[in-house]
């Protein structure tokens, strides 16, 4: 029998499979290695961001700064690689250090100043985007040969799909996150925080350390996403990835994680990302939607997924027998 905590996860997976089959039924050419490869490549940076977002949301927080952090990372890398002769790997290290520190600072403010995460990270969002502007308003191309090397790593599948390095990075991040969340003390502390900060504290969870680590993780993963994005576009641009935080949140929530914290799975987020990617692919394949219908249809599809999940979950729990297995022995 299904265990209830995993139910939303299964629902998301079922929804994705169902939706993909419907898409193929309408556009047979959607069943191709290209589409699958594109789903992974195009959503790599979003997926990595969403992993960090899952961590934050599991603790009952939120991180609105990720989109700006990605943009900042891109611009920073582009400017550094343009103006200095630093090797990209070193630059990656630098930018990760900056974004992790930035995230940790947000976490520290959330914890020590007792300010709501929504607002702290909103200010962080303005700040990082602003810093990106200050570095460069122009979009700056990246022309380092090391980038070419990284970009030329891909596996061309039969059917023309290119499975690129960045898709692989995303998968690794997901797997790593799963291990951390489910098999480490830190992971359990994340869930504990989401179940109630006060309670977690009384149970001996190190609140300060966990909160700071969580936002540092989110910041760092946004930094990694920024690196991936810069590989994806070979450029840094201060106006890029506006609103990505909302996409990430939507993916996390579609993946079955509760915004109130404490319940959810990284794997769900993965399918949430795929579902969002599928919606966009579908719209491109359709190709008849005007600008405004595009928005309306995305909204409607989002709504449909949420409702489908609710209905599936409701139908499954209604059929479930009440849990009578347990009883007191006397």
């Amino acid at each position: 029998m299904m265990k209830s905590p995993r139910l939303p996860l299964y629902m998301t997976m079922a929804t994705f499979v169902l939706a993909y089959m419907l898409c193929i039924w309408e556009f047979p050419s959607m069943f191709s290695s290209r589409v699958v490869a594109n789903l992974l490549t195009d959503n790599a940076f979003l997926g990595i961001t969403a992993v960090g977002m899952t961590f934050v949301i599991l603790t009952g927080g939120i991180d609105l700064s990720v989109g700006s952090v990605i943009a900042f990372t891109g611009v920073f890398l582009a400017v550094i690689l343009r103006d200095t002769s630093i090797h990209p790997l070193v630059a990656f290290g630098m930018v990760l250090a900056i974004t992790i520190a930035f995230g940790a600072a947000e976490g520290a403010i959330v914890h020590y100043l007792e300010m709501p995460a929504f607002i702290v990270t909103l200010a962080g969002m303005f700040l990082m985007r602003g810093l990106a502007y200050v570095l460069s308003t122009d979009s700056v191309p990246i022309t380092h040969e090391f980038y070419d090397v990284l970009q030329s790593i891909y596996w061309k599948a039969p059917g023309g799909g290119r499975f690129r390095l960045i898709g692989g990075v995303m998968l690794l991040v997901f797997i790593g996150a799963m291990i951390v969340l489910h098999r480490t003390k830190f992971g359990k502390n994340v869930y504990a925080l989401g179940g109630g900060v006060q309670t977690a504290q009384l149970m001996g969870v190190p609140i300060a350390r966990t909160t700071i680590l969580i936002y540092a993780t989110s910041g760092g993963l946004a930094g990694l996403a920024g690196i991936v994005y810069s590989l994806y576009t070979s450029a840094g641009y201060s106006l890029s990835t506006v609103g990505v935080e909302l996409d990430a949140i939507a993916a996390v929530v579609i993946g079955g994680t509760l915004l109130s914290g404490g319940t959810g799975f990284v794997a769900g987020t993965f399918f949430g990302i795929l579902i969002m990617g599928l919606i966009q692919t579908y719209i491109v394949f359709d190709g008849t939607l005007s600008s405004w219908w595009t928005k309306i249809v995305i909204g409607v599809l989002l709504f449909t997924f949420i409702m489908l999940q609710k209905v599936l979950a409701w139908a499954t729990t209604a059929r479930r027998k009440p849990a009578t297995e347990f009883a007191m022995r006397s």
Partner: protein
Amino acid sequence: MMGGTLRRIAPQLIILGVVILLNFIVFPGFFSIEFQNGRLFGNIIDVLNRGAPVALLATGMTLVIATKGIDLSVGAVMAIAGAVAASVVTAGGGWFLALLAALAAGLACGSWNGILVAVFRVQPIVATLVLMVAGRGIGQLITEGKIMTFNDPGLIHLGAGTILGLPTPVYIWVIMGGLITYVVRRTALGMLIESIGINETSSRLAGINSRVLLVAVYLVTGFCAALAGVVVAADIKGADANNAGLWMELDAILAVVIGGNSLLGGRFSIIASLLGALIIQSVNSVILLSGMPPEFNLVIKALLIIVILFIQSPAVQHAIYLFRASTPPHAPNENGAKNNQTAKESLS
């Protein structure tokens, strides 16, 4: 009662004062007000006038946030309402009809959100995300992606007109904010809303109809957003569904938080949120008047907000409290209430 309100909004008043002082420093003519062309003319008037959309949004948003919810769709609802108003007047309907139609559209949007949240139990942020994405599309559908320009003087008056020299939007937000505050505080609504925001289960078991209240709260927000949408459209004599209210939901939420309201629901003060809206507008004013290149806009805004929130944060407020009242030594500090969230759980 009066004293309590004053104490509640004191931090906001002080911050507003400081930001306005900052305005005065970057632009010494900030306080000058002239009467020309039948209207009062000055930066202070601008702050009051330009603060209207965010103030209107913040009024409704305060209530939604008090119920532990959030409404991301207000910007999109503004776009819809502006588009509806514009299309009614361009189709020959009078300004009043246009206003009614826009408000009806706002109420429709609000009830959609409310039903999703209250009946289908979708998390507010996601429920309203749907309309945030789709709503702007609906607005553009109505205007077909153009800026729908109109010339109806009645409608334009709502955004760009003046009454007794003061811009009309100032009246609109002051009256709206006052009215809702009055209704909420003179009836039991305020307490009931706070109650469901703090503990919905308990409230339901105590006999409160949380469903109806939730829907009502989203209705009010939709209404306020529609009003804001009409004001914004009337101001530029055109419905710009692409840009009207874009990202303004964030400013509205910010205003509510600067107003000292907890995003975790419960106790709220609309007046404080309105002050929050004025603070945000004053910050924008500093940025515009400072003459700095626009690249720095966001950095300045972020830094000012961080400073404001820092001053307001419970930890710093507490330190100030301790500093002023040095007896008893460590008075109300408890390790337990580290996070805002923690305050929600009982400690006994």
